[in-house]
């Protein structure tokens, strides 16, 4: 005999289980239409793999597992897929959810299936995949995908496997009849799970209010090494954490999982489904559901195909609508009111409670909390319900979390014992949901913050890169300018170099080389203008042949260019003519041009020195006027030649400077003459 422990709190509500235990499991039959929600488990909804109008066989997969936390879904009978759409489902919100709807053909034709009786030879991963693809999710009520629980993480040591046959909630007897009638399947299923998890001990926990089930299980486990443990009835000993404490004395830490204390828990229904899937190759397409309450004439358990409308079950059980006010899925403690009788049975539907109006009346109006402390005594999670109640009313979410609200299992024991009829558990349910929503919002805002900051950083970086590129360009330009100066100056002092250049130029000018360059320049002007004229005329011809609108413009262009060419030729001619006289005189000049220039300059200076101020000023003025003339001439030339605007500007400024100087010189002369 194994030592059993007790957990804190708990209540003893009226069991009301006998009503539905009067007969054996009945077959609910095949309804005309089956509605299969794609999300009957915790995790991502399955992905439909059939199309509307497709014929499906019984047991054919109609939706595949989608992602790591998901299971498959199968056709519960043969028929035709008539819709994949949103339908009302068994959910307290009364919202619609995507469903596959199958019209049954009544033939109930199985798809070819075969089990793996020799499952021990199967690879572990293959066995887990088989369980996932058979659509098995926890059948105790939560619907957590079974294969995930069984895929024990590497490093986690599971020493105890618990098969949960407690079924502590009043009215529900689905697990009880399953244990009575199909104990062998449960034990076989437990053996498969044991094979996967490899625990030291495998226990089946059953409350002592189910003696027939206990007898059946004990007979079935004979010699299998699986131990059936009986313990006193108390609500909610079927809670996973509570059952673990009862059977092992270990408490699952707050926020932890049973695996943290080396335990895995599976419902008896899940174990039987695993057996069917592995040994017979039958996926999860039906379950046992209790239909009970005073508003049905034959409360009993049905083997019901998933997707069967609740109304079909009610009809089978002799529903008296007049007596009934609401339909509850689940038990009186943790169940919820269904939005309609047309919602389908799903993998987690263990009970359909159809109470009469007097059986489960609407709760009386809540009164003030009198701080009696009964709720704290009843709480199986050792929480402080009245404290949580105050915080929930004040929406003090951080305090709720500090008081371990998330260890609340929603069992409703606190509400049940409350003498003021305060719906405590509703406050906790709502607060938990609100906290989870706040967390989601915080996550979202954190996500937005990260994105915002990333964007800011990116923009800053882009700006910095732009700035860097700009600086690099500027530096490169400076470097180029420096290099240019260095090249011409040969690394010497640029001013010195400029002076030297100017001297050399002057010397060359004096030697008459400027005349030659002038001639060259004029010749070049003639050549380029001629070339330009040629291209202009060809363009004009082209335009004329094509009949373009530009003919007129090109015509004037050609004429202008021609005039320019004539002017240039004339200028060259004049220059050559004027120079021929100079050239004739040249041989008479001293052979050393430079020497001559120096002598001329010396003579000029001497003459200047000999001049009186008035003469000096006059000659200066003359010189300036000559320079001005020359500059103006150059400016005109450069404008005509279409030089770069920079050069033109420079020449313009030279001209204006010279004009200023000329006026100054004139003023000075006038002053001198007056004096």
């Amino acid at each position: 005999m194994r030592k059993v422990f007790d957990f804190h709190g708990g209540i003893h509500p009226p069991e009301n289980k006998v009503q539905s235990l009067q007969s054996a499991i009945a077959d609910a039959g095949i309804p005309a239409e089956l509605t299969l929600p794609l999300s009957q488990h915790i995790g991502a909804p399955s992905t439909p793999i059939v199309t509307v109008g497709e014929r499906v066989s019984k047991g054919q997969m109609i939706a595949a597992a989608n992602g790591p936390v998901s299971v498959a879904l199968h056709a519960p009978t043969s028929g035709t897929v008539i819709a994949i759409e949103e339908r009302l489902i068994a959910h307290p919100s009364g919202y619609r959810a995507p469903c596959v709807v199958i019209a049954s053909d009544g033939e109930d034709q199985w798809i070819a299936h075969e089990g793996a009786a020799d499952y021990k030879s199967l690879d572990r991963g293959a066995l887990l995949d088989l369980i996932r693809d058979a659509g098995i999710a926890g059948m105790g009520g939560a619907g957590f995908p079974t294969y995930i629980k069984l895929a024990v993480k590497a490093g986690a040591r599971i020493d105890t496997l618990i098969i949960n046959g407690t079924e502590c909630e009043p009215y529900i007897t689905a697990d009880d009849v399953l244990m009575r009638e199909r104990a062998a399947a449960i034990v076989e299923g437990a053996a498969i799970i044991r094979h996967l998890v490899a625990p030291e001990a495998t226990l089946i926990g059953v409350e002592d209010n189910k003696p027939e089930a206990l007898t059946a299980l004990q007979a079935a486990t004979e010699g299998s090494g699986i131990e059936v443990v009986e313990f006193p009835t108390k609500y909610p000993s079927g809670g996973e954490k509570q059952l673990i404490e009862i059977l092992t004395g270990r408490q699952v830490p707050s926020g932890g999982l049973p695996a943290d204390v080396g335990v895995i828990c599976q419902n008896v229904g899940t174990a039987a489904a695993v057996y069917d899937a592995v040994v017979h190759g039958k996926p999860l397409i039906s379950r046992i559901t209790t239909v009970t309450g005073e508003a049905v004439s034959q409360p009993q358990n049905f083997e019901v195909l998933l997707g069967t409308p609740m109304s079909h079950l009610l009809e089978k059980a002799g529903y008296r609508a007049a007596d009934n006010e609401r339909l509850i899925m689940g038990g009186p403690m943790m169940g919820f009111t269904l939005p309609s009788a047309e919602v389908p049975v799903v993998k987690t539907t263990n009970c359909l409670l159809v109470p009469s109006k007097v059986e489960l009346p609407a709760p009386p109006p809540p009164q003030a909390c009198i701080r009696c402390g009964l709720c704290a005594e009843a709480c199986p999670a050792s929480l402080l319900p009245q404290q949580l109640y105050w915080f929930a009313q004040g929406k003090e979410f951080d305090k709720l979390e500090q008081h371990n609200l998330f260890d609340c299992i929603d069992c409703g024991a606190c509400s049940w014992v409350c003498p003021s009829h305060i719906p405590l558990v509703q406050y906790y349910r709502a607060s938990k949901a609100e906290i989870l929503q706040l967390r989601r919002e915080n996550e979202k805002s954190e996500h937005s913050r990260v994105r915002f900051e990333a964007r800011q950083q990116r923009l800053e970086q882009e700006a910095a890169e732009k700035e860097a590129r700009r600086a690099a360009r500027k530096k490169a330009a400076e470097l180029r300018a420096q290099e240019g100066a260095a090249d011409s100056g040969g690394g010497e002092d640029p001013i010195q170099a400029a002076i030297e250049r100017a001297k050399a130029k002057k010397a060359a000018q004096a030697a008459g080389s400027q005349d030659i360059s002038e001639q060259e320049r004029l010749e070049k002007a003639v050549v380029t203008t001629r070339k330009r004229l040629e291209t202009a005329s060809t363009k004009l011809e082209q335009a004329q042949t094509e009949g373009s609108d530009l003919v007129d413009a090109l015509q004037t262009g050609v004429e202008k260019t021609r005039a320019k060419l004539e002017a240039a030729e004339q200028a060259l001619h004049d220059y050559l003519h004027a120079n021929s006289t100079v050239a004739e005189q040249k041989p008479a000049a001293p052979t050393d041009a430079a020497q001559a220039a120096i002598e001329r300059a010396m003579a000029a200076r001497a003459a200047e020195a000999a001049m009186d101020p008035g003469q000096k000023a006059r000659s200066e003025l003359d010189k300036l006027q000559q320079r001005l003339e020359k500059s103006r001439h150059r400016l005109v030339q450069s404008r005509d030649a279409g030089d770069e605007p920079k050069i033109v500007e420079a020449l313009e400024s030279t001209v204006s400077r010279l004009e200023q100087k000329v006026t100054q010189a004139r003023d000075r002369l006038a002053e001198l003459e007056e004096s």
Partner: protein
Amino acid sequence: MVELIAQYPLLAAVLALVGLGASFGALLGFAAVRFKTEGNPLADQINEILPQTQCGQCGYPGCRPYAEAIANSHEAINKCPPGGEAGIQALADLLDVEPIPLDEEHGEEKVKSVAFIREAECIGCTKCIQACPVDAILGAAKQMHTVIVSECTGCDLCVEPCPVDCIDMIPAQAQTIQTWHWDLPDPTSRKVDIIATDGPDVDNARDEAA
């Protein structure tokens, strides 16, 4: 020296106090340097409370600058419409000041919304992409743009720059079966915390008397 101290107990006391003062001062000085907090922790905390919509309705370019303004220059805490009353309450709790009602100048609390681009009308100008503070708009020049709903904060900033007015702010997806949750028991439909004399009959009688 020892004799001197022994002779004058006052000196001993003074020396002891000065010694203690110096040693604790040195310790604190060291700690101040060694455990110096980087940045402004208060601004960080405030920033965490702000909804990170980055909408700029507070007059600051984003939530972080507003958080810094609250922390450093005592900016009012009621300028964040997306945060709403709950946000103001949280800020008031954090800063230990009285909560004040939302400043209407900066807008009012609205239902959460997301931007939606009528794609047929989009001309691909990228103006909204540049305006989006969280890079939630996808697209390229002369290509149709679209909003990544899961990234959109509903800040409105993309609506104004759109030259063809093809962006709508639509309410964020209404509750789904995944986000649905139980509500707190409604105190109006069912009287909470009545006392025995507040029974239904008494209530009716009082109503009649009134």
